[in-house]
């Protein structure tokens, strides 16, 4: 490590997180198919560079919010994968005590304000959090991740206007993976899409190849610095692809194998790895990172499998103080 550049060291750290996310998602998928996980799981495989590249530029006190495909964002922001895996398994010591599950993971201790089961609502909440930052005169930013399908929801469009008129410290990260569930977003999106819309509200930003970790990192760094300096809302538009179907219940048969294969060629982990090798980082070092990530997630899986389920009475707690169920 001593012989590689600072930049390579930083990227190596990000690669580690990308591997953790990928291993987590693959394990979550297996666990769902094996019947350990209820509901459904929306895997982030293929999009890791976005969460990781953005969150590498955030502080623990900064906020993020996410959507239904939220595991990657949580891990990138610093959530514990073991607690998260336990949450997917519905265990008492999961991140949310088993009450939330895959689509409702939050970890307020590291500024992760929540995944969200309602498309676009994570974004509108992040804008509200940014308003609190402004009111409380705090030195924080809020970042929200959403998909290309979300951009047709009215509340998200309201949030663009809102963030701009109050000059709020929020970064809108649009992860354009071409699909909203089984629908090609190009078929249901008028005009030039997200960027044109954000700009029509006077919001600037950058478009990047979302599978290029270095590009994401660099763009996020610039944008977040500008936001921190009081520059108001910005967007980051990242083009990417999800390797897996929409979720574990989806057959995925609306995409051709050819399309999937072409995108797998652009896998962000492979690209990052190639870059690191080109920078003189040793293959062993990379392999060991990968192994570590795999081992961590295997331990998470094993731990989740044996962790205790919540007691039924926990169902009645934390509803509300006044008027809580008996």
């Amino acid at each position, binding site marked *: 490590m001593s012989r590689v550049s600072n930049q390579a060291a930083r990227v190596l750290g990000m690669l580690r997180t990308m591997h953790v996310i990928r291993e987590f998602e693959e394990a979550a998928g297996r666990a769902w198919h094996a019947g350990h996980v209820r*509901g459904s799981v929306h895997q982030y495989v293929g999009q890791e560079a976005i969460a990781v590249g953005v969150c590498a530029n955030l502080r623990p006190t900064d906020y993020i919010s996410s959507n239904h495909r939220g595991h990657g964002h949580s891990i990138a922001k610093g959530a514990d994968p073991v607690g998260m895996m336990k949450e997917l398994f519905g265990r008492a010591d999961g991140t949310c005590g*088993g009450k939330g*599950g895959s689509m*409702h993971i939050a970890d307020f201790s590291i500024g992760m304000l929540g995944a*969200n089961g*309602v498309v676009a609502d994570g974004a509108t909440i992040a804008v509200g959090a940014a308003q609190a930052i402004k009111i409380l005169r705090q030195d924080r930013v809020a970042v929200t991740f959403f998909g290309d399908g*979300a951009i047709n929801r009215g509340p998200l469009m309201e949030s663009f206007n809102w963030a701009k008129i109050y000059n709020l410290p929020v970064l809108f990260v649009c992860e354009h993976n071409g699909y909203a569930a089984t629908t090609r*977003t190009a078929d249901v999106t008028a005009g030039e899409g997200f960027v044109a819309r954000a700009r029509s509200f006077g919001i600037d930003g950058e478009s990047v190849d979302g599978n290029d970790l270095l590009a994401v990192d660099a763009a996020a760094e610039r944008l977040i610095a500008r936001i921190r300096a009081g520059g108001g809302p910005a967007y980051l538009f990242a083009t990417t692809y999800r390797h897996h179907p929409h979720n574990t219940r989806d057959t995925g048969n609306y995409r051709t194998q050819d399309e999937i294969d072409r995108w797998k060629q652009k896998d962000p982990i492979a690209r990052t790895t190639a870059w690191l090798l080109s920078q003189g980082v040793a293959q062993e070092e990379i392999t060991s990172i990968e192994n570590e990530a795999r081992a961590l997630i295997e331990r998470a899986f094993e731990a989740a499998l044996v962790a205790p389920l919540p007691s039924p009475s*926990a*169902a009645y707690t934390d509803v509300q103080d006044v008027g809580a169920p008996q």
Partner: protein
Amino acid sequence: MITEMTYAEAARLALEQEMERDPRVWALGEDLGPEGGLAGQYRGLQEKFGPDRVVDTPISESMIMAAAVGAAVAGTRPVAELRFADFALCAADELVNQAAKIRYMFNGQSRVPLVTRQAVGMRGGTAAQHSQSTEAWWVHIPGLVVVTPATPADNHGLLKAAIRCDDPVVYLEHKGLWGMKGPVDPDAGPIPLGKADLVRRGDDLTLVTWSGMRVECAKAAEMLAREGIAVDLIDLRTLWPWDREKVFESVSRTGRLLIAQEAVRVGGFGAEVAAEVGEALWSKLRAPIRRLGAPRTPVPFSLPLEEACRVSPEQIVAAAVEMTKGKT
């Protein structure tokens, strides 16, 4: 010829038949074409009727409902698919302030013949934002008809009736029932709205239910029969209007009413039934009317928590046993 099919297939068939019968009928919603609906309840219909009559929409719930309203007043009969009843809240204004009020505000100049399908209920870990049972809200809204099919045959006949209804219908299919099989007569016509189904007969107690809870109630009724308690099991099928006649006749006979719903008990539709029966049949009741429903909590994810929020056949049995103690 009566055929065995699932609840989802029965609805698919009904929609196909109605679209064949009436060119003004069309459907809109997310993923109807490529996915064919959450449970295949739209499968093949876009191929058959084309993308203008089975419309894939963006994720724009407000516009899904508003387009249905506008297209209904302009001479068509839309079926607006909202997928999960929870997401229908994103279109509550369009449904309540527009669809439900237009006929009235405009003094009958127009009707709003739309159906909005909103899947309700828990289905194995769907958790807080994909599991709500929302029927009580819509029953409270003047102008809306509210339908809750619980069998394949009902999902066939009631969907037909909903589509032929000239007023807005909130059509609540239960996610847990999609795969349930049962006999369906494909040639059967619409089932009249507002007519309950007397699933089982017995003179000791009236058990009123609807939607997915019908299944648990049927199990409970079976268990109760083994203990010598005979129940009238009534599946309301339509919550507005609800079949007061059938329920009143039954309670007049049994003197005991137990209501079981999956929705949160507080402020649920069961309260309306209890209040109405309590007022009308006051002198005929032999025991207090009881209601079973979910505790007032969001729906949790993990199995033991979810189970703690479900009404089980055992709970229904226990309540019925208590109510009929020392029955005459």
